[in-house]
């Protein structure tokens, strides 16, 4: 069964510094997709970054990058130069067939000015 685990319920980072959010998953598939979504307070979830498992190169999107370790089934999100607007719940998600998403329990990120 596919499971996604986020072991950090809450994290804090100082503005302008770097923070890494962890995610591990369990699957027996070889081709799949991984996503990080951001859910700001009282606002909708938006896609931050996605990674195709067949690609060895780690995805990057501006200040957001991932460290994808396929053998270890690990998919961490690094946020550089943290901004106040980055404060939100972050969800890691896995998908492989028919676009069924499996979400982790989330990490609440606090950004301190």
């Amino acid at each position: 069964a596919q499971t996604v685990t986020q072991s950090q319920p809450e994290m804090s980072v100082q503005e302008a510094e770097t923070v890494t959010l962890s995610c591990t998953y369990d699957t027996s598939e070889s081709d799949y997709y991984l996503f990080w979504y951001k859910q700001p307070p009282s606002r909708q979830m938006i896609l931050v970054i996605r990674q195709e498992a067949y690609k060895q190169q780690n995805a990057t999107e501006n200040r957001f990058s991932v460290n994808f370790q396929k053998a270890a089934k690990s998919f961490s999100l690094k946020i550089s130069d943290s901004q106040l607007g980055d404060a939100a719940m972050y969800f890691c998600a896995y998908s492989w067939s028919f676009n069924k998403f499996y979400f982790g329990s989330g990490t609440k990120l606090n950004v301190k000015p």
Partner: protein
Amino acid sequence: EAEVAQSPRYKITEKSQAVAFWCDPISGHATLYWYRQILGQGPELLVQFQDESVVDDSQLPKDRFSAERLKGVDSTLKIQPAELGDSAMYLCASSLVAGGGQETQYFGPGTRLLVL
């Protein structure tokens, strides 16, 4: 930028009453998803539609929940009768197609349900 619309945003009801939520996906998106998100947890899929057909409703409590997407566009999720444990955020999402897992899902703002 096109967005997924949901209404109402908030709903308070008493247990044993019926409630309904509405979702309008991004135009052209064939796949529509309903999720339930309990406070402090990640979203859990309730039902997935491809056009007007149900693709996956394995986690939908069918004794009280129903969902439809009659014309393959907007969708309604209904709970009858509502129970205290149904208090949660109900999220709707859409994607272009179901595909092999690579399609990004776009989420609406959600409906927060409180059952008293």
